[in-house]
């Protein structure tokens, strides 16, 4: 392949244009994180809202006069409106969750993502909306012998301009100096008489403004659509993590790197540009765990939610309850209809998946934001073996946990080196790699459509028989994991969770323990995924997606992370509620989002926690 210089130059320029856009968005995310220590999932929603605002406001302004001034005035107004929405989010939600564990903050802001998605669909409808092109910048510019859009050139300049303005703001204004001070030590800034609440509100305005600006500037290039939010937020996360969370300069560097990687990666590996980006992130984090220009967190332990303390034994009453639950699951096919059996089967499968996640989070203190990856990989392993290689169900179900365990071991090798929010971000990144592969490798995985025809063996083909199969396998899986929690290995994991340094000092190889724990949890999730593939008869990339990972987290949050069996309870409650309400309303996302937020705000110890407090009141003992 002979490549001309002019072609390479244009490719590099379009990489710079994407880098600029990405930087403008990521700068807001990293700024908000730096000051408030909250990783704002809803930042992608602000970006999307910026685009929707702009496709609404800008054409209206252009009707008055088709001038560049009005176009950019519309863009800035859109960004300002989004900034005000950021202020609303700070006052209504963030202010209440600055002190809760990071996992809960992520979940709560994800709740906002769900609510905004529904709101956007409600207001603007499901169709993509194309925006107007910028007056005065609609032409192409000849660069050597290649045509290059003028608007892209404008974007290339916009990134450095925003960087420069932010630098001036941060160094030459009192507000900026206070922000930088608060990034290092919020409490001290308060003790010097600065009202943090106002500072944080201002930060959210600025952060949301930048996200909105990023979105509004995109309208001549891409249509506003309701899928923009999650696509951009993962990229913005990657940029901030590579650059170092809280570092604006780092975000700029990282955006440049990623822009070029994508521009040239697409020439060499057209199928796996997403993978390249995430590989870069994994590589950077292994070499520089705090990103290119980031610095170590001052106090990571505050990041942890309350986990499993010392696991107790069931009392007689609880043994009866468990027996009753098993009996209901076993007898259900006798009195329930086919739909009830299907829901019960899924509850058992999600129960195993949620249990395996809490084995990580509650017992190991490893907050995984991408647990669905291992669930989905198990499902894909089984599904592909059965449909492509004609393997029978039974060995395929055995391969599912092995395959997921393998990938959990591979990804976990990198993940367990990190702590706190960086660890959570890396789990998310690896999950997105797996998602991207399943999504983009159409020849093998069927891409977006997935693969159908993943049916169980003939003897297990009936819903009822398959229900019993799942009952046996899932319950055995849960018992096995529970055994690990009670075993010395489980206790060592808890020790490493509570104090890695002290655990090391008494001879526990913390990293090896966490790695093995991560692998075990991944394998168990893979088993659940395999079971799920056969129960559905199909597989598709949503099985590895962020929403499912969040569902699993919501299940363990609902069930109580400090409880051993609570997550199973949480899975049952969550899945049944979702199953009952989803068909009743068009706005189930909105309701789900609101419920997740409510759960974090009102009920942070979950159903299991509420039960544990009750039990402690009656018996005086620890749960």
């Amino acid at each position: 392949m002979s490549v001309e210089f002019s072609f390479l130059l244009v490719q590099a320029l379009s990489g710079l244009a994407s880098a600029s856009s990405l930087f403008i968005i990521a700068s807001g995310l990293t700024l908000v994180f730096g000051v408030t220590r909250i990783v704002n999932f809803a930042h992608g929603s602000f970006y999307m809202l910026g685009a929707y605002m702009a496709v609404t406001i800008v054409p209206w302004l252009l009707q008055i006069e088709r001038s560049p001034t009005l176009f950019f005035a519309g863009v800035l107004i859109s960004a300002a409106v989004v900034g005000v929405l950021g202020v609303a989010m700070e006052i209504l939600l963030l202010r209440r969750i600055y002190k809760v564990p990071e996992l809960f903050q992520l979940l709560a802001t994800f709740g906002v993502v769900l609510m905004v998605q529904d709101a956007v669909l409600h207001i603007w409808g499901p169709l993509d909306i194309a925006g107007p092109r910028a007056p005065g910048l609609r032409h192409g510019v000849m660069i050597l012998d290649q045509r290059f859009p003028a608007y892209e050139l404008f974007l290339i300049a916009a990134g450095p301009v925003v960087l420069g303005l932010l630098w001036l703001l941060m160094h030459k204004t009192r507000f900026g100096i206070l922000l930088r001070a608060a990034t290092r030590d919020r409490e001290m800034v308060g003790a010097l008489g600065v009202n943090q609440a106002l500072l944080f509100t201002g930060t959210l305005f600025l952060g949301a403004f930048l996200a909105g600006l990023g979105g509004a500037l995109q309208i001549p290039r891409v249509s506003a659509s309701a899928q923009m939010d999650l696509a951009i937020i993962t990229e913005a996360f990657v940029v901030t993590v590579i650059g170092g969370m809280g570092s604006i300069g780092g975000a700029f560097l990282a955006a440049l790197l990623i822009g070029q990687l994508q521009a040239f990666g697409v020439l060499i590996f057209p199928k796996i540009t997403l993978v390249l980006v995430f590989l870069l992130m994994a590589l950077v984090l292994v070499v520089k765990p705090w990103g290119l220009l980031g610095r170590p967190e001052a106090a990571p332990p505050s990041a942890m939610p309350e986990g499993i303390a010392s696991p107790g034994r069931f009392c007689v009453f609880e043994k009866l309850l468990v027996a009753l639950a098993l009996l209901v699951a076993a007898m259900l096919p006798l009195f329930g209809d086919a739909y009830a059996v299907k829901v019960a089967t899924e509850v058992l499968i999600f129960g195993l998946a949620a249990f395996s996640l809490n084995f990580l989070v509650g017992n190991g203190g490893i907050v995984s934001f991408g647990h669905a990856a291992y669930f989905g990989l198990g499902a894909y392993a089984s599904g592909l073996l059965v449909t492509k290689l004609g393997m029978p169900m039974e060995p395929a179900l055995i391969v599912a946990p092995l395959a997921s365990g393998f990938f959990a071991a591979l990804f976990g090798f990198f993940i367990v080196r990190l702590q706190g929010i960086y660890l959570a971000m890396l789990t998310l990144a690896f999950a997105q790699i797996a998602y991207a592969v399943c999504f983009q490798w159409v020849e093998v995985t069927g891409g977006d459509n997935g693969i159908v025809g993943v049916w169980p063996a003939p003897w297990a083909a009936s819903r009822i028989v398959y229900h019993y199969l799942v009952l046996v396998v899932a319950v055995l899986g849960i018992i096995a994991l529970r055994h690990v929690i009670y075993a010395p290995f489980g206790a060592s994991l808890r020790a490493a969770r509570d104090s890695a340094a002290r655990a090391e000092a008494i001879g526990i190889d913390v990293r090896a323990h966490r790695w093995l724990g991560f692998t075990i949890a991944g394998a168990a999730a893979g088993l659940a995924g395999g079971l799920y593939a056969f129960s559905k008869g199909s597989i598709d990339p949503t099985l590895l997606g962020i929403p499912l990972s969040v569902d699993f987290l919501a299940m363990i949050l609902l069930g109580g992370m400090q409880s051993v069996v609570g997550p199973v309870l949480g899975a049952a409650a969550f899945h049944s509620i979702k199953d009952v309400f989803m068909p009743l309303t068009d706005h189930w996302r909105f309701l789900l989002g609101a419920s997740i937020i409510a759960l974090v705000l009102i009920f942070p110890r979950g159903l299991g926690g509420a039960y544990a407090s009750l039990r402690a009141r009656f018996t005086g003992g620890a749960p």
Partner: protein
Amino acid sequence: MADKVLEVEALRAGYGPAEILFGVSLKLARGEVAALMGRNGAGKSTTLKAIMGLLPPRAGQVRFAGQEISGMPAFRIARLGLGYVPEDRRIFTDLTVAENLEVGRRAARGHAAWTPERLFEIFPNLAAMRGRRAAAMSGGEQQMLAIARTLMGNPDAVLLDEPSEGLAPVILELMAEAVLSMKREGIAVLLSEQNFDFAAAVADRAYVIERGEIRYDGSMAALEADPALRAQHLTL
């Protein structure tokens, strides 16, 4: 009680299930320097944090300039004119000296406002470092910056947590001089201290705290003159 700028009565505070303060009472007169002395873990820093609102008091009263301040957020307390210099300095290491001072700046209430120039008279070392990043300063310089930063808020009283900790003897003298200049400016100072000689050099009044309770409350001179009393309370 107009002569008392700070009055603490039966203050209780702690972390989680751990009670640290069991009813601490103390007073600070206008323009007075008082030293709160005690061993490691006796509750000195906790007392100052609880007064400042950085640790919510569980019981008791804190009055500053006649106004009840317990339960207020720290920034409101600071705005009333109570300054705080923390034990570990907590200067903003990414910011320059001038920017650190800017973070502390608040409008003066009545008296002449502190400016960087006036502060550089007390802390001459800082003058040459205005544009330097605070991370590149020695411990003693950071301590001076921490005090200067708090003075930029034009406080009527300052809580000074272990100002002598980890300082070289030469710097220690400068620090004592700084505390006395604050006194000359009419600023009341409550400092927590383990270094008796330092405390004796600057303080008019002494409190000794032990296991979260005040065990001695009297003049510094009396404590200094009585070795037996000192041995009883301060076998540091």
